[in-house]
């Protein structure tokens, strides 16, 4: 899939690199014992350490290290036994220490790679440069006072994983697929909740453009903190177009930090440009290097769940699903788990069909997700059983599903209560067939003359008479027998 921007002078390609900040799921912060929970009263989840009181010292949260290692393993990446926390020095209102404790020269996770299955069936491999751990900053609130900005430090010190890709994405779609894939993996691993609206996953997007055939990179811009996949793709499109225009009009793109405005769909340069960036990184003397052992990493490896790529392969190999179906089902761990319950001991393809077409459709229309589905996996499985053992027809099953979705009831109960059980009693069906033939002699004659299509019309008549409960195959067979001259 090649995404090119046609300019006046040339075709331009995009070079996209992403830095994803993923908030680690933990009870307490990276270096202090205050809570990480979202939505608390301002400055309530703040310890003396987070507020950078004089003499306060950081002590690292073991679970955060485990989460970073786990994520690194999920990204097929090198885990570094030796890593170092450094201080990134800069002044900002929401950075109480005047430095962020981060990792620079020696991150905990090194090179890795992600495989993206694109919608057109192509496969792309994107390199991961590193994953490092760092502290989140606090929050600045600008709209509470005309002359002051208010500061809430609840988030200051929460553990983030910064996942840095190589600049190997070439289209907004690839960038979107990459972010969705990372999100899927961290959610499977339960190392980050992946919630972009609440900001627990944010992407900084580095974009540059170059003429097709050029090998060097041109100046890039960094668009900060884009909080949805859709916005990110919009930001990339806008930014690429803008840069092409700048180059083609004889100008030069400035290396700068930009912000995305979701209302206009545009990016703009940040007004508060930092002075010359000079972060003066150096190893944090309040901490020692992290020294991990192979045993520590093995213990984490043993707890790793099956990840989406492996699950997809298994669904295709063992359950015979198509690549597309398998891909759709493994995207979210909850969906895959749901599907597996439905498919357990049943026709996997039928189960996949029901989950993807019927359930997803209904959920989408109701603006619900799989975790809040009114139809449980057990109930959907039972519905499939009712179809399989001919208790109901596929058509009736759709009606039953609608009732299930609306009421959350067990399909067995619905079928019993509403008397939807398929009529398999041949005598009853035969009576309905005879009645239909007797009531419509002209049409019966047409069939006898050889108009096979008219059989279908008779089937409809019989189904109507039986409120759809007659077994369609039985009806068909009887009609054929009786109307064959």
């Amino acid at each position, binding site marked *: 899939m090649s995404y090119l921007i046609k300019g006046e002078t040339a075709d331009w390609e995009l070079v996209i690199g992403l830095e994803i900040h993923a908030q680690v799921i933990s009870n307490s912060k990276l270096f202090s014992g205050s809570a990480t929970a979202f939505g608390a009263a301002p400055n309530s989840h703040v310890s*003396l350490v987070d*507020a*950078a*009181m*004089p*003499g*306060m*010292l*950081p*002590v*690292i949260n073991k679970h955060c290290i485990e989460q970073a290692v786990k994520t690194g393993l999920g990204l097929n990446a090198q885990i570094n036994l030796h890593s170092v926390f450094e*201080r990134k*020095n800069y*002044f*900002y*209102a929401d950075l*109480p*220490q*005047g*430095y962020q404790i981060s990792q620079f020269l020696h991150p905990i996770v090194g090179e890795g790679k992600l495989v993206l299955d694109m919608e057109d069936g192509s496969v792309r491999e994107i390199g991961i440069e590193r994953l490092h751990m760092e502290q989140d900053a606090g929050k600045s609130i600008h709209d509470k006072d005309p002359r002051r*900005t208010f*500061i809430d430090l609840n988030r200051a010190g929460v553990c983030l994983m910064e996942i840095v890709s190589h600049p190997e994405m070439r289209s907004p779609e690839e960038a979107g697929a990459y972010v969705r894939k990372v999100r899927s993996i961290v959610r499977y691993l339960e190392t980050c909740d992946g919630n972009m609206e609440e900001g627990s996953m944010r992407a900084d997007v580095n974009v540059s453009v170059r003429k097709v055939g050029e090998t060097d990179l041109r100046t890039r811009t960094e668009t900060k903190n884009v909080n949805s996949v859709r916005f990110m793709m919009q930001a990339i499109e806008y930014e690429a177009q803008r840069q092409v225009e700048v180059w083609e009009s004889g100008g030069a793109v400035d290396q700068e930090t930009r912000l995305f405005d979701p209302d206009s769909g545009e990016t703009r340069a940040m007004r508060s440009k930092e002075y010359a960036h*000079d972060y*003066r*990184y*150096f190893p944090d*003397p*309040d*901490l*020692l290097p992290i020294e991990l052992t192979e045993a520590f990493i093995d213990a984490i490896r043993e707890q790793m769940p099956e990840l989406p790529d492996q699950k997809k392969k298994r669904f295709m190999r063992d359950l015979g699903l198509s690549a597309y179906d398998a891909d759709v089902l493994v995207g979210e761990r909850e969906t895959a788990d749901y599907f597996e319950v439905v498919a357990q001991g049943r026709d996997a393809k039928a189960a996949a069909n029901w989950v993807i077409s019927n359930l997803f459709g209904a959920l989408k229309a109701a603006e619900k997700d799989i975790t809040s589905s009114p139809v449980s996996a057990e109930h959907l499985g039972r519905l499939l059983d009712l179809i399989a053992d001919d208790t109901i027809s596929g058509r009736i099953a759709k009606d039953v599903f609608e009732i299930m979705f609306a009421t959350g009831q067990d399909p067995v109960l619905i079928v019993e209560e509403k008397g939807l059980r398929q009529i398999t009693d041949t005598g009853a069906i035969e009576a309905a067939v005879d009645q239909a033939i007797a009531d419509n002699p002209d049409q019966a004659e047409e069939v006898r003359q050889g108009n096979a299509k008219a059989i279908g019309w008779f089937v409809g008549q019989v189904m109507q008479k039986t409120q759809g409960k007659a077994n369609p195959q039985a009806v068909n067979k009887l009609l054929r027998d009786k109307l064959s001259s």
Partner: protein
Amino acid sequence: MTHANELTITQARDALSAGDLSATELTQACLDAMAAARDLNAFITETPELALQRAAQSDARIARGESLGGLEGIPVAVKDLFGTQGVLTTAASHILDGFIPRYESTVTENLLNAGSVMTGKTNLDEFAMGSANVTSYYGPVKNPWKRDDGKDRVPGGSSGGSAAAVAAHLSLAAIGTDTGGSIRQPASFCGIVGMKPTYGRCSRWGVVAFASSLDQAGPLTKTVRDAAILLQGMAGHDVKDSTSAPMAVPDFEAAITGDVRGLRVGIPREYQIDGSPAEIDAIWQKGADMFRDAGAEIVDISLPHTKYALPTYYIVAPAEASSNLSRYDGVRYGLRIDGDSLDQMYENTRGEGFGDEVKRRVLIGAYVLSAGYYDAYYVKAQQVRSRIAEDFKTAFQKVDVILTPTAPSTAFAIGEKMDDPIAMYMNDVFTVPASMAGLPCMSVPGGLGDDGLPLGLHLITKPFDEETLFRAGDVLEKQANFTARPNSGGAGR
């Protein structure tokens, strides 16, 4: 007759347990001496009410026979770099105006739990940056030792207030912090014992940071035995400090045996520096002789990178300080000078809040860490630091303790060396190398210089071998028999 404030910890402990003296009497004697000696400017904040309250609690415990610990009822002055719950904590800087911590540093908490009584917060160089206690926002401290020329002398620094308070008997003992010599050099200038433990022995939690990889709390006392007792109350593993050593604290006082026979005492030839006054060589020689007389073995050793320790220190310490002091930004505590923008507020607050020496060091530190210079200065300095540490490691294969002078001179007059930062830095030339290697070390009064002012002898041992340090220091102290007394301040009241 000896006034209560002139007692050593050891003497006071005996008097308290014998019931000859109450903690309240002892504390009151110190408070009276402090009030009479305000001219020394040794304290930034006196805490008489808190002190008497704690002394009364101590007396009550003693009466009930449930004494807390080894420092029950002992008045201790605290360098104003330790965060103390509910008590103004300034680091002698304008930028911490009005800062009252809602927490207690681990070391002062340990002292409280050992039963000691804090009498006040002592003066220091601003953010512990200095060797003369002349950079304090609260004014210089005067050394209680006077000469007949009428000029006031510096007490050394940065724990100058603590050293002056102990020398002038304003308190039985004091605690300080030592980054490059800030306990030992003022101890030398004031004729008392000053001890810096191994890096990691005392928790840094709650102590205003200067240079995190070097800062250590330690005791300033009248005797070596007192130093052992006081350190016992301060030290211990602290889970709140990642660099705190997870080790049991030995019984330091029990290590004092009075016997150094067979102890190998190293004399590093590189501490012989060109142009050093004869009195320094003389006191050093005297120290070696005293050890030999006591049955120790004198061994010549080499610490080849000694001369590079001070310049290394003046890269590493300012680099760490420049970052540590970024938190003083006018937002969460202390001074705030407003401005039209966030950056202007920062610049105004820090421009006004920091004194000249702090500014110099923060700027040097920012410079050596900045793009293009990091490798040439900071990384290079940390490499040299590794070599300095190796030197000591090698030396300690041959010797048990190293003997050097503490300072290159006696106390100089307030106002001297003010216009030459490097001349001022040279005060720490003998103390900095051991700091760079995180080693335990101690200054013990050795005698008087030609000008009649005290000179210290400096001992260094292996990491976490404070026991040998106390044993050797005690013998040196007995041999030196330093009985001279400062001729001013609260002494003798």
